[in-house]
Each structure stands twice: as structure tokens, then as C-alpha cells.
């Protein structure tokens, strides 16, 4: 790997375009979306556009208690006063919020078991290589499958129930565990937080709810598969995970989406809360439709993910592999409030063709002896743009806070861009903050070396990229890691000729 630059940086914009080695590494980016198909399930739709009435209808449709309806309405009224943020390094045609549907659900009522699940849906999972029945038995993974806005399959509930673990659609939690929802919802991401989170608070459709009781170690990876299915339907997932004192949970979120020509808006919110001595590990593999090679279509992905290490010795670890979406705007963050709490962020963000990603993290040190680690690996191919944006903030009361950040960029071809925006705000002199950044490119020499050993160019690029992102893949649960590496190769197919 060449072009290594090391810098200790506070705030810099680096735009690297590659110039040489053009003969071999040119962007022939003709990989069509492999998982592109549309499930033929009847949808029930509300009228287009958003007003108080629609918000009330969404809430009523879900039989929500009064407090929830009120919360949604407050969010809606706040949202009306907001403007879409313009600071990210993203370019896209404006979203017409009045021309979207804010609720869509499969027409039939939710099934009680797999037998009742729409066969079309099961076929969809098959095509994705996620046969639900097998998953159930295979890896001991409980699946809370979300198609469009309503959860239609939840498994393993019984086993988890014995331990007092609650794992269900958030719509169900709102009805059946309102006290827990009321206590925690919006405490990490308030409805006033930002344009997209506010919108989500008003109209969120469904998502997962997890509660792990004190001292319980969740015996299996909890997993959700998300898909966006209805044309022009915004997808507004809302996930809330609470790990009570001394508990542990690992949660996996994975997504793929069908091929569609129209831009689709996605504005999810994920809130994590870890109390004393609790640990949450949240892993994401994101592979929504990224648009075609001319940059038409693809998902607009505006996500707010934040974790609160509320208790002492608590830990939250985010791992994300982002390969899909036309636009990604996402900063999984940690508020390190409890003393000795730990926040981690491991990220691989891959962009190809005309994809744009502006992603990173915020580590907010509030408690004493808090530690955070940031490992970010950006990969840009085709004509894509990939930005890391991260904030490390050490409050005045956070004695002995420590942070280490490593932000690397890898360029493939000569027409992609990589940018780093590390922000630092240190208000306590005892803080130790370290930042390292490198930029490198997949070199012709590396590809030839692998070719000369019998390995095809496509596999070679996949290997080089997986090697580069190894530190992050190592954080993923085993079967997810394999899937994620395969996804890398698929996403990069044709990016090197």
C-alpha cells in the first residue's frame, strides 16, 4: 500500500483524488444489485403527505396509549419548525416530504407463527439466503423480521421469556410494557434532537424493543432483518434497547432492499441504554439498494443512533458495515456518563459508483476514567464520496478520559473521494486523546501479485479490502463476518478492471 500519510489533525478536509495507475484500475462499475427484487405483498396505505391527522391515525392504528400519541404530536409540531440540515458533505435532490406515504403495512393481520407468515415473504427471505426456519434452528438466533413497517415474525420468544428478556416489536412493547417504554423512550435521542429524529418520533412505524433484566446475560444474538418494500414509503424504524444492571446483550441488525428506481427515504432512530456494569454490543450490516451505476435510485439513509452508558462500568460497542444506500448519514454515538464507562465504534463504510456516505461517531466523555475507541475504515470506489466525521468531546468533569481514534481511507480507482473531519473538544486537561489517519489505495502491484498466484482480480480486490477492514470484521459475530466479507466483494464487483 502506498501514499501513507500520518497526521494528527483537529479539523481538516482532505480531498484525495487518484491520478496514476490508471491503466488497470479504472472504474468499470457494472455490478447490478444482486438482491434486487420486489415482494408482491398487498400494502395498506394512508394518503400521501403529513399532518396531525396522519400522526393520530398512525397512533390509533397501533392502539397506542395516550402518552404515545401526545409524544408523537409534540414531535410533529416541533418538526414543522425544523429545516433539513445542510452541513453534511452530501448532494442530493430535495426530498418532497409532502409526497411520501408515512405508513404502510402488509394488509393481513400479523401471524402468530411461521405457518401464518405470508409465503411470499418467506420466499423473499429465501432469496436473501435467510431462510427463517433454518435460522431459528441453526445459530440460535431469534429473528424479529420487519417487512416495511410492521413486524410479521418473531421467534424464540418463549426461551427468552423464561429469562425475563423482552424482545418484541416496539409497537407491541408500547401496548404491553408502557411503563418501560415511557421510562426510556426519547431519553437518549429526544424528539427535539435533529430533523430526521424528530420526524421519526412523529411517525415511527415499528422496530425492535429489547429489555434485559438485571444480571442476565442474553444467551443468543438477537437479530432483526429490515427491508424497505413499498414504493414511496418512508421507513421509520425505531429501536430501543435497555440493558439493566449487570446484563449483557448482543444485537444484530442487517438489511437488504429490493431494486427500485425511486429514491426512498429512511430515517431510523436507535437508542441504547446501558445501566451499571451492563454491556451492549450492536452490530449492523447495511446493504440497502444503492442506486444503479448511473446513480439513479437508491435509499436515502438518515439514521440517528446513540447509546447512553448511564451506569458506572457500562460499555456500548457499535460495529457497522455500511455498503448500501445512495446516501448514508449516520453517526452511532456514545454518551459516557457513568464513571469508568467504555464506548467503542468500529466502522467499515464502502461506497461505489455514485454513492455518498457521511458517517462517523461522537464520543461524549462525561464521567471519570471513561474510555473510547474509534476504528473507522472508509473505502471509496467508482465516483463515490466517503466522509468520516467524528467528534470526541471531553467535558470538564471527565477526569482521566482517554480516546484513541484511527481513521483510515482506502481508494479504489482514480475518481473517488475520501474526506476526514475529526472534531475535538477537550475541556479537561487530564484527557489523553490520540488521533491517527492514513490514506492508501489499492495498488496495481497488489492486484498483480495476487493475480500471479492464480487469484482473479475481483477476488483480489475483495481480499485486499477485507484485509484492510479486518479489525472491524473481527468485531462481528462469526456468521455475520462471513456475510459481511461476501458483501464487500459483491459491492465492489466490477470496480476494478
Amino acid at each position, binding site marked *: 500500500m502506498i501514499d501513507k500519510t500520518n497526521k494528527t489533525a483537529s479539523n481538516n478536509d482532505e480531498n484525495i483524488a487518484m491520478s496514476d495507475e490508471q*491503466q488497470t484500475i479504472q472504474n468499470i462499475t457494472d455490478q447490478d444489485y444482486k438482491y434486487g427484487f420486489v415482494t408482491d405483498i398487498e400494502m395498506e396505505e394512508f394518503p400521501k403527505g403529513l399532518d396531525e391527522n396522519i400522526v393520530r391515525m398512525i397512533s390509533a392504528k397501533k392502539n397506542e396509549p395516550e402518552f404515545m400519541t401526545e409524544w408523537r404530536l409534540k414531535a410533529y409540531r416541533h418538526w414543522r419548525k425544523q429545516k433539513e440540515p445542510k452541513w453534511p458533505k452530501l448532494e442530493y435532490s430535495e426530498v418532497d416530504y409532502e409526497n411520501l406515504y408515512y405508513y404502510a403495512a402488509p394488509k393481513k393481520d400479523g401471524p402468530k407463527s411461521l405457518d401464518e407468515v405470508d409465503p411470499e415473504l418467506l420466499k423473499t427471505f429465501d432469496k436473501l439466503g435467510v431462510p427463517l426456519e433454518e435460522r431459528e434452528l441453526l445459530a440460535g438466533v431469534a429473528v424479529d423480521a420487519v417487512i416495511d413497517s410492521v413486524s410479521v415474525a418473531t421467534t424464540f420468544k418463549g426461551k427468552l421469556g423464561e429469562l425475563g428478556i423482552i424482545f418484541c416489536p416496539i409497537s407491541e412493547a408500547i401496548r404491553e410494557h408502557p411503563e418501560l417504554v415511557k421510562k426510556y423512550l426519547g431519553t437518549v435521542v429526544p424528539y427535539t434532537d435533529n430533523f430526521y429524529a424528530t420526524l421519526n418520533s412523529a411517525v415511527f412505524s415499528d422496530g425492535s424493543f429489547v429489555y434485559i433484566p438485571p444480571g442476565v446475560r442474553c444467551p443468543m444474538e438477537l437479530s432483526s432483518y429490515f427491508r424497505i418494500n413499498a414504493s414511496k414509503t418512508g421507513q421509520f424504524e425505531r429501536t430501543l434497547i435497555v440493558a439493566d444492571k449487570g446484563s449483557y446483550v448482543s444485537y444484530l441488525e442487517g438489511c437488504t432492499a429490493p431494486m427500485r428506481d425511486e429514491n426512498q427515504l429512511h430515517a431510523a432512530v436507535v437508542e441504547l441504554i446501558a445501566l451499571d456494569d451492563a454491556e451492549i454490543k450492536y452490530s449492523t450490516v447495511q446493504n440497502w439498494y444503492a442506486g444503479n451505476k448511473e446513480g439513479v435510485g437508491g435509499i436515502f439513509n438518515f439514521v440517528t443512533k446513540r447509546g447512553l452508558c448511564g451506569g458506572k462500568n457500562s460499555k456500548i460497542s457499535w460495529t457497522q458495515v455500511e455498503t448500501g444506500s445512495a446516501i448514508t448519514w449516520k453517526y452511532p454515538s456514545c454518551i459516557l456518563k457513568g464513571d469508568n464507562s467504555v464506548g467503542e465504534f468500529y466502522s467499515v463504510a464502502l461506497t461505489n459508483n455514485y454513492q455518498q456516505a457521511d458517517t462517523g461517531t461522537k464520543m461524549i466523555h462525561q464521567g471519570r476514567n471513561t474510555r473510547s475507541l474509534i476504528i473507522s475504515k472508509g473505502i471509496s470506489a467508482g465516483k463515490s464520496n466517503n466522509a468520516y466525521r467524528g467528534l470526541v468531546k471531553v467535558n470538564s468533569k471527565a477526569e482521566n478520559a482517554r480516546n484513541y481514534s484511527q481513521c483510515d481511507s482506502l481508494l479504489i480507482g482514480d475518481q473517488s473521494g475520501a474526506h476526514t473531519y475529526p472534531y475535538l473538544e477537550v475541556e479537561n486537561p487530564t484527557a489523553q486523546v490520540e488521533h491517527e489517519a492514513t490514506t492508501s489505495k489499492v495498488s496495481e502491484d497488489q492486484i*498483480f*501479485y495476487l*493475480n*500471479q*498466484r492464480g487469484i482473479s*482480480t475481483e477476488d483480489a480486490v475483495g481480499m485486499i479490502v477485507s484485509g484492510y*477492514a479486518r479489525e472491524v470484521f473481527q468485531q462481528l459475530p462469526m456468521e455475520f463476518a462471513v456475510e459481511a466479507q461476501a458483501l464487500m466483494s459483491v459491492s465492489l464487483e466490477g470496480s476494478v478492471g
Partner: protein
Amino acid sequence: MLSIKNLQVSVEGKPILKGLNLEVNPGEIHAIMGPNGSGKSTLAHVLSGREGYSVDAGSAQYKGLDLLEMAPEIRAREGMFLAFQYPIEIPGVNNTSFLKKALNEIRKHRGEEELDAIDFLSLIKKQMKLVEMKEELLKRPVNQGFSGGEKKRNEILQMAVLNPTLAILDETDSGLDIDALRIVAGGVNKLRSPNNSFVVITHYQRLLDYIVPDFVHVLSNGQIIKSGTKELALELEERGYDWLLEEAESKA
């Protein structure tokens, strides 16, 4: 095995190989010597399919196949191996899994079953003894942080595992200490058979004490200006290249 006829190659418009001829038969070892910049590595690269070279005239046949038409990975799968003058580092990619992938690509191409992890490990352990390489290097990323000598041994290990039909060694002896040189040469000698051939590029006759060539060629300014047996290497060691260059000039 390998038949090169009137090969003319240029890089960015600059002619490097200017009508090169070479015949290598099965079981033979050919040494290629010659001054810096004469085109030895260029020849190795063109034969193994590296991009960036333009073949302006001539041909190269390998096992009766038109070599220059084949993708580099196909040449490799057909049994061609290049030990690089400067082996490349691949950060984060495990040396063992890289080599397993390479071997299985070649086996697949030959219609053989892929080796599983256990069979592969026993093969690699056996071949490591051949080059006396530290086992720890297998767990590290490909060539990353390897010393110069370790990189060269790693090349020979790969060769031993992939068991090529035609191996081109580009200055594998440069940067090796005396012991390592003996080990690397010993590895080559053990792999030697009536069915495979070696093209050994070197500056030093010393290597040829260990790997005894059937033929020695002198490459200068893009052409082979002299061919002989191993005695030619000794003569070069003694007299340098100047007399040959003058001889070639007066002929022209």
C-alpha cells in the same frame, strides 16, 4: 515448455525488449544475467502478464498456448510462477489463507478437489521445512513487516506449495545471507524434476554454484547477446560485461 520469438516490448513508448528469443525445454534451468536496466524484470513481468507493457512484435508460447493472450491469473493456474524481485505487502490478509486460496484456485482450474484446512496445513508445514521458514510468519499478513530475506523465503515457500511447471525467479538471491541462499537453492533443487523448468534471473554466479543451470544467457539492452553454459557465468564473474557489450557492438 516456453518459446519466445522476436519479443519486442515497450513501456510508455520506450522500447525495452528489442527482439528477444528464448527456448526453454522441460527439465531445464536457464539463468539470465545482465546489467541493471537491461530488461530482465520486464521480461519476467511480460511473461506473467503484468499490465502496462505493450507488446509491439513477436510471440511467446507456453505449453503450446499463446501466453500473451492469457489473463495473468490463468497463466498462474496453468502452472506459471513468478518469484518477485520485490515481493508485495498485502496488509491484513493472512499469509496462510492467501496461499490456501491460491492453491485452491489452481487446483480448481485443473479439475482437482480443493484442499480443506487440515490437508492444506499439513502440506504447508511440510513445505516450510524445505525453506526453513519460521512458522510465526504464516500467521502474519502477507509480507507485511517481513525482512527482505523473509520475503524472499516466503516467495520460495509459495513456489513449493503451488508446485509450478515453469518458475521464474527474479533475483531471489539478492538480499539473502549465505545460509538463506543455500536454503533457497536447496528448495529449488528439491522441486526440480524432468517435467518442470526454471528461469533464474541473477546478478551473481554464486547462486549458480547451488542451482546449476543448463544454460546461461546474457541480456543487454533488450536482447540476448550471448548464450552459453555455466562456464559463461564464471567468465562473466571474472571479466564483467564490457567485453561482451563491445563484442555485440562490433557485430552490429
